[in-house]
């Protein structure tokens, strides 16, 4: 069971700060939260980076999610 924590911007769409998801992979996790929260758009969510247990991943398509993982969606970061 992974814990997904939503940013304040995403909370506008989910109505809650966090949720527990039974998912072994990133794709499964996205499937489940976009089913659970109708306002979360799959394409938009999949454009975001994620942090899984503190590790920032910009292109997480093939990532697996651990049993007690904490998952945050965040804006992609660039730099100078």
């Amino acid at each position, binding site marked *: 069971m992974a814990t997904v*924590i939503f*940013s*304040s*911007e995403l909370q*506008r769409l989910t109505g809650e700060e966090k949720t527990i998801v039974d998912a072994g992979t990133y794709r499964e996790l996205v499937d489940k939260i976009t089913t659970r929260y109708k306002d979360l758009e799959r394409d938009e969510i999949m454009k975001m980076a994620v*942090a899984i247990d*503190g*590790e*920032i*991943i*910009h*292109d997480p398509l093939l990532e697996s999610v651990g049993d007690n993982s*904490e998952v*945050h*969606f*965040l*804006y*992609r*970061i*660039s*730099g*100078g």
Partner: protein
Amino acid sequence: MSEAREYKYIGQRSIRPDGFDKVTGRANYGADLSLPGMIWGKVLRSPHAHAKITKLDVSRAEQHPGVMAIATYKDFPAVSSEAFEAGEGATDLLDLARNILADGKVLYDGHAICAIAALTEAIADEALSLIDVEYEILPHVMDVRDAMKEDAPLLHDDLFTQGLPEQPDKPSNIAARMELKKGDIDQGFADADVIVEREFYTPTIHQGYIEPHACTVRYEEKGTSMVWCCTQGHFDVRASTAKLLKMDLSKLKVVASEIGGGFGGKTTVYLEPVSLILSRKSGRPVKMVMDREEVFRASGPGSATRNWVKIGAKKDGTFTAMQARLCYEAGAFKGSPMGPGCMTVFTPYDIENAYVEGFDVVVNKPKVAAYRAPGAPQAEFAAEMVINEIARELGIDPIDIRLKNAAREGTQTLYGPKLKAVGLIECLEACKNSDHYKAALKDNQGRGVAAGFWFNIGGQSSVTINMNPDGTATLVEGSPDIGGSRASMQLMAAEELQIPADKITPIVADTEVLAYNGTTGGSRTTFATGMAVIEAAQDVIRQMKERAAAVWNVTAEQVDWVDGTAVNTAGEGRLTAVEICAGADRTGGQITGRGNINARGAGPSFAVHIADIEVDRDTGRTRVIRYTACQDAGKAIHPSYVEGQYQGGAVQGIGWALNEEYIYSKDGILENPGFLDYRIPLASDLPMIDALIVEVPNAFHPFGVRGVGETGIVPPLAAVGTAVANAAGITVTELPLSPPRVLKAMQSSSR
């Protein structure tokens, strides 16, 4: 990650492999390539801040002897609004095209209108004066605060604010709004014993790289076109240029010259697509070089901001609430670093209640580009100034108040993840224990301390290591070397392969040689390209073991790699890398290792700086007396170049705090487009910059690397700002702290 590991090569202060060419003048930079038959391109630029182009007649210029081609916006294939990733993140293709060559309307002083290629630079310049342009001047808006007003002149009638709960029905100059929140901000302020709030102004500033933008190109209708240019990312130059001109990536070769500084400013394209158009139309190679005035007027400076911060604290210094409203100028097209500003502003602190609101606003100035930790210095300047004011009000040492609230392992950041081990507390302690912090100040001197945070990024890197028959290696990378990164790659490859560093030659290859590489930026190169180097080296070792196993007729699992030598654990036998490579023809052909990765797990980086400034009470002139820059590198691969990043970042920040600003006339014309009047720090302005390297390894990197390029520019604004405030007895809310501003503040000081 192996903390106990002892390194043989990493951590050495080796001579950089490209050093010889760079101290002898042999290294070739953006403007250094000439081709047979080459002609010169020049750009006509807007003399107005905001105007409609009512007439653009190039016929007289076209007839001028020696003119070979003219390019205008109409020469772009049909371009539509479309977000795509290149260089500094998401860019709108239509905005990019309209910035490179204006489409019927000019949006800032210096905005490119058309370009001419001619036999010589002088002829091209003459021909520019023959272009007949008429303008209908429109009202302009130069400041973020004015641009946000309801009745402000509009830059784009199709720009609608993104990020509002309801889609607005009227266009405005506010391109986007975002907010981040955590906890209960009202309760946080209710719990505070002291609350300080202030609004700060930071001006438009420029990266100030010494090398102007330059390129030499050759367009081939049927073959492969070529762009030679100075850029932080030639693969992204290829992506942007090919997209704009509708070319196949495989038909456009981009070669990164040596690069004479970038700091984020060379992460996008200006001249490259235009010169290709000129080359296509003339059938000649074309060279274009910006002059210094063009660099200031029409490349991508850093955002001016008006940032308001409010912080509440308990008497013991514990922060209870932090709030910010951050307004960033994007220049003429949307896309300021407001997002990273919001995400970094309070990250050095473990805070329960926070609320941050950010605005991305267009004004009649050049479109901003990335500048070293883009967005962070402006936001964190405001936060750190307020924290220093709270510390003073509460009578708490500024380092102690930061130690009390410092972000640490497990801190929930406002922007997303919980932090792993980070080095802020270690940096604060190193500064507190430094001789500098214990040294006494004299009359008219003040000290300032500030912390800074930057994320650092990972991203895509592709590296190939070709083993030569004599056992030496050629390391092929695709990250332009902006500050000595070839040396880091060499050391990391040597460490992994266990062969001497001087036997490894790193080269930066063009876009035809390697798969895609992300742009050098975001402090990613030593981190991400370094990871690709490690992976490629491991691939080499795997193959060397296989070859040795084949010679000994054992399995690869029975072979160890020790000190650059294969060791047979199932019997007798040792084969050095030199021997394996020499015999590679008989064991299956030559050996190439490959590492194509998308690096994740970039290490958040913190810095703490101490500035001592002396103020001349009669003139307002300031002088940096002593300066310390302390930062967590994770692991310093080449300590000299890590120190160099700290020192260089600190001095750019000192310039930002004390001297640098774009000065516009009432008509919106840039009045100081040169190094004489846009004054970056000189050798005579500065003391030595003490660099303290803290190493708290990044858990996600094999050597613990975090990336070091950007964070060092974040703390100086508030460290210097506070030092000046303390030295002069004034309240500082505006940069730069130039002598007239300091003098005026001293004369009216109530502090």
